């Protein structure tokens, strides 16, 4: 078995899980929910093994390094963190329909990684600057944050689709959790993401300092991560101290994720800078 085969299986299983979650929402059949969770978990396990195997393969090629170093590997890891963060949320709040709005992100990430022609899937050696343990700390912390923000955006979409009691609401949205609950989980998920993003920015700064002697150089990617961070900080304040809740927070969770996507992806292709993922 090669890692690429396992990751291929992962992509399909995430698709299956996504479809099951959507079916659960449409047909309201609780048994489907169990399958959806089980398939998500299996896909996640397969992916874990796949990522581990890719790590091993890199050593077999004599260029061993953690599989977190180019665009392809980071997108795969993004999907992995979305799946696990989602599973934890599902376990905590015991509501499965959220899967229909979270797992598509994991599937789309894997599909993009597998089928896009922009990004190379080969295991390539690391340039000297990337050979640092801070790389692992930095990528892991950032992506846990990004995954949380992705799910928060999914929850924000659910919130916006759900109408108030009495208003005419689509039959699907009636199966969402109550608005109050959605609002609460969206907020908590953003808070969780914010902590990890903070840690991600900090580990990045420590790494930059150990490689170049400058912990902050206003490179476009750094700056965009800070913009995203400012954005979520202001969202937390608007909610906590000015009582914003509901629709504005749902919208902010979506805008925040757009900023995350730009930080992660847009910067590489539209702006130039230190970060190497764009070249992969």
């Amino acid at each position, binding site marked *: 078995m090669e890692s690429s085969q396992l990751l291929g299986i992962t992509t399909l299983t995430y698709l299956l899980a996504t479809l099951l979650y959507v079916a659960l929402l449409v047909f309201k059949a609780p048994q489907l929910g169990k399958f959806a969770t089980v398939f998500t978990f299996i896909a996640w396990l397969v992916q874990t093994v796949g990522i581990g195997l890719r790590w091993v393969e890199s050593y077999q090629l004599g260029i061993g390094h953690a599989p977190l170093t180019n665009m392809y590997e980071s997108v795969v890891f993004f999907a992995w963190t979305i799946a696990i963060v989602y599973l934890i949320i599902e376990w905590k709040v015991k509501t499965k329909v959220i899967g229909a709005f979270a797992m598509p992100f994991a599937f789309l990430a894997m599909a993009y990684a597998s089928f896009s022609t922009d990004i190379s899937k080969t295991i390539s050696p690391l340039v000297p600057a990337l050979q640092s343990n801070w790389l692992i700390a930095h990528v892991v912390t950032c992506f846990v944050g990004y995954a949380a923000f992705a799910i928060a955006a999914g929850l924000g979409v659910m919130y916006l689709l759900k109408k108030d009691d009495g208003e005419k609401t689509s039959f699907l949205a009636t199966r969402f959790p109550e608005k109050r609950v959605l609002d609460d989980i969206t907020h908590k998920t953003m808070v969780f993401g914010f902590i990890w993003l*903070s840690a991600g920015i*900090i580990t990045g700064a*420590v790494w930059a300092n150990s490689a170049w*002697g400058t912990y902050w150089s*206003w490179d476009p990617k750094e*700056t*965009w991560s800070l913009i995203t961070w*400012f954005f979520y900080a202001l969202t937390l304040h*608007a909610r906590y101290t000015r009582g914003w809740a509901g629709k504005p927070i749902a919208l902010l969770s979506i805008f925040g994720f757009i900023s995350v996507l730009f930080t992660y992806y847009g910067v590489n292709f539209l702006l130039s800078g230190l970060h190497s993922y764009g070249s992969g």
Partner: protein
Amino acid sequence: MNVLNQIWDFFASVKLAIFTLCTLAVTSIIGTVVPQGEPAAYYVQNYGIKLARFIDVLDFSKMYYSWWFLGLLGLLSANLIICSIERLPRVWRLITADNGDVAAENLKKMTLSRTWTTTADQPPLSGDQCRKLLEEAGWKPAARKDRQGNLLFFSQKGRWSRLGVYFVHLSILVIFLGAIVGHFTGFKGSIMIPELNLAEKIFSSKNQSTIDLGFAIRCNSFAIDFYKNGMPKEYQSSLTVIEDGKEVFTKTIEVNSPLQYRGITFYQSSYQGYKDFIFTITDESDGDAKTFSVPFQKQFTWQDKQVRFGVVNAEALGQRVTRSKIWFKYGDSPAVSKWLDDNTTEVFDVGTGRFAVSVKQMYATGLQVAKDPGVWIVYLGCLLMLLGLYMAFFMSHKKIWLHFSEKNHSSELILAGSVNKNRFSFTSQFEKIEEHIDKNVTT
């Protein structure tokens, strides 16, 4: 006074915080779109005269250091400081106050509250049992008498977590402080040191002025290691610190593994290949060895040994020499020439002499040099931020009371709890204690 109050309130308000964060987020975008730090002519060429003037006036070419951007950061700091001065005393009182002193009727009004009444023929719980109930649930209750002389157990957890938010806010100020300290007491610069040479000064990256190190740094050698596919794997420089003419120590640095001396750090950052060569020649008869730097196609002489040598030809991949053809002559014996791979040693037998010759292309190592005494303050701020975020979001100030009173042959037990956030998880803890009491009390 009224005006002063208004100004104070303005700086203490969260509205201002939201405005500042929003403005910082939006304006920061500019510097990611407009290239930073280019010379004025660049902007004229790319944006036209009118826009270039606009860029110049608003300092968009180095916007993160511009008066208005620093002003926004200053505004954020003032906001943080004044907001904290405004709120901290109240929070401090919440933390240090005697939180247990609550009357029975107020305990009953709390959102989390439950009362049991036992009749005369039911034995009530003893004080010890009450204490044990709470202890079993993980609390450390302290017993006291309330104003009516009834027994009251109180326990609280995580009251310091109320400071979490203030740690986060303080951490931002600490990070700014670290950046300011670094700016005024440190420097950033760079230097190219050719192999075998030493440098006592570096060039400031701010204005290209020279900065005296106060000691010298010598580049003994520079090497690049390549992957099979030709990508660079590692850059390495062997550096020696020399102070007052004495060698202090030698270290091989790599990217991500710098050398530090007297608060100044040397980072491997670039290199430059020369058309010169470094020869190391060892006379095998007596072990004498010497290193020379020799220009391409120039003859060189080791006087003591009557040795003459040079590089007559070389093959290169881009800037990198892969092998070179050595010309070598000893005394009156006929000259020998051979191709040598870069950085390898070969023995030359010439007449009666026997010499080990190694040759490599000469490089200069490019070092980034930084002194930043503020970096530890910045790191401290970062730790404080993570700690503060953890306290703010994962910890809460929980309080629990168990009130016990007897009147008219019946006894009453009140369990009450309160928490400042994360109500959900506290509620389930509370319900566990409730169940526990249910089991022990018959009403």
